[in-house]
């Protein structure tokens, strides 16, 4: 299988994630979509590492994984905070910064 297949699949995965971010009302749903985005990127990194005969791509995947974990942790903390304050976690209702 060529590099372009992986890149394409990763691209599709990314677009699905993008769609999710844009459309989900629930904050956890958005976090789920973010995971998809990160995964798409990871696939790309791994693919380029494989086809580019390097190891750095794999190392980056590790790093992004760690980053994602951090993101999920903080994100969930925020979601819980939001929930405590407002009793719901619908993003389109949490518009306190409306101008």
């Amino acid at each position, binding site marked *: 299988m060529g590099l372009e297949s992986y890149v394409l699949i990763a691209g599709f995965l990314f677009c699905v994630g*993008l769609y999710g*971010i*844009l*459309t989900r009302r629930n904050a956890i749903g*958005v976090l789920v979509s973010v995971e998809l985005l990160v995964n798409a990127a990871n696939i790309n990194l791994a693919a380029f590492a494989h086809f580019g005969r390097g190891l750095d791509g794999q190392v980056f995947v590790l790093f992004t994984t760690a980053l994602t974990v951090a993101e999920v942790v903080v994100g969930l903390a925020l979601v819980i905070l939001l929930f405590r304050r407002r009793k719901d976690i619908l*993003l*389109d209702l*949490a*518009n*306190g*910064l*409306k*101008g």
Partner: protein
Amino acid sequence: MTLVTWALLALFVPLGVAAFIGLVVPLRRTGRPAALISVAGALVSLASAGMVLAGGSAALKPGVHATVGWLTAGTATAVGVHLDGTSAWMLLVVTLVATCVQIYSLGYLHDEPPPALGRYFTYQSLFLFAMNTLVLAPNLLQAFLGWELVGLVSYLLIGFYFRKPSAAKAAVKAFWVTKFADLGFLIGLVTLYAQTGGFEWTAVTPAATFVTLMLFFAVMGKSAQFPLHIWLPDAMEGPTPVSALLHAATMVAAGVFLIVRAEPLFEQAALTRDVMAYVGAFTALFAACVAVVQSDIKKVLAYSTCSQLGYMVAALGAGDTFAGYFHLSTHAFFKALLFLGAGSLIHAVHSNELKDMGGLFRKMPFSGTVFVVGALALAGVPPLAGFFSKDLILEAMHHHGLHVPLAALAIAAFLTAFYMTRTVMLALFGTPSHAAEHAHEPGIDMKLPLAVLALLAVGAGFLGGPLAGLTGHDYAFHFTPVGGAGTAIGLVGIGMGYFMFGPAQGGAAIKRGFAPVGAFIRYGLMDRLATVAYGIMLAVGAIIAWIDRYVIDGLMNWSGWILLVLGRRLRALQTGNVQDYVYAVALAVVVFGAWGILR
């Protein structure tokens, strides 16, 4: 001690006194002690003035000059003292009258609360300083300083009873009118400065006509020449001694003194002299007419002052400086006397109105006598002081061929005698009014100055010769037809006055005939015009302020407001919804990505 030292003493002792009693508030609030200090200061000033005059008539001839750079180093903008016969004599006149008035005020203002009394004498001392500054001025610049300062003190003293709305009004009116006229002084000064680089009395410049016209405009304000005389009658709201000192004897005469001083300049300007002659003569006539119909004794005297100042200005316009200056001196004495005498009457009946007086001569023989002396001097009855100087003026007018002004002055002389007789008759003789029942003579502090001034009113005419010698003119009294005619006219006026307002109460037809004229004069056209002008000014101010507020500022606000509205619109973009922001990011990524890929 040198002459300059004496002059400086005369100048700065009153200033020191004013500062001392003005700034040491507890002292000022005690009233009488402050007043006595002020009188002492005036006496020192008077003595110094006497020493200047006595000590050096020979030294005075060439003039003594002592200056110090004021705005810059050097003499161009210097201040100091300039002593010659003219200023030395004027210094004496001013300090003498001022001393008399201050002593008189001790009695006259006896009932004032102590703080007010302290304030009054602070102003009095300040006035003496200001007037001496003007008199001793070595150049026009210092003259202007003194000129403005006396205007200031005049404002403060007219507004002495500041709780009275009419006094407050009169004070600001006096200040505004004279200050407006002073624009002329200022313009004259800066023109002179631009032309000659200095402010010398003796400057020679091609712009002399313009400069002198401007100076004369200022004189019209300060010396109450038509049509800028309107402040003077109102200024009678001040205490009577103030009227005597400032608004009769000295301050209003400052204008005349200025012209005398600036004689070299005025000599270069024939046009200005003509204007002066006509304006002066007209004022003399006009004010005399108005004086005839006044019912307030101080107003009579105020218009009389206007009229007499007109005489002086006319004389100076004729080019006879000495005549004007002589009349200035004699007038200072007898008009101060008249005012102080009137003050004594007012003090007795607590009213300015002639109708509240009447028959006071019997109750107050001393005051009555001195008042009559003053009136006779003013009417030009020989050999009292007014006779000589007025005679000289009429003769000067005739000599210089100014026949129209001469005629006006002659009529004015008749009217002067007439209205003074009327005043004397109404106030001192005739049927006593209710208020006059309890009138009594004032104390010695008021009598003494009256006596001094009365003597001078009688005798000052004979000082003409020495005075001429002092100031470098020639003068000896000799009988002339014009002068004689003037005196005769005056006597007729007295007779007429006695006929109409004396025991006979004759001339009812004349009174009836002139009633409309009197009504018109009392209407006070110039005053009303000034009020209208003031109203117009306020209206213009309101319009401009409105434009500034709502149009000019409005444009600013409007442009700011447009941005505000724009901002309100743009604000809607910040929905506060996270996904909208993500959407914007995604959109940007797509757009830039498309641009990058499809390019």
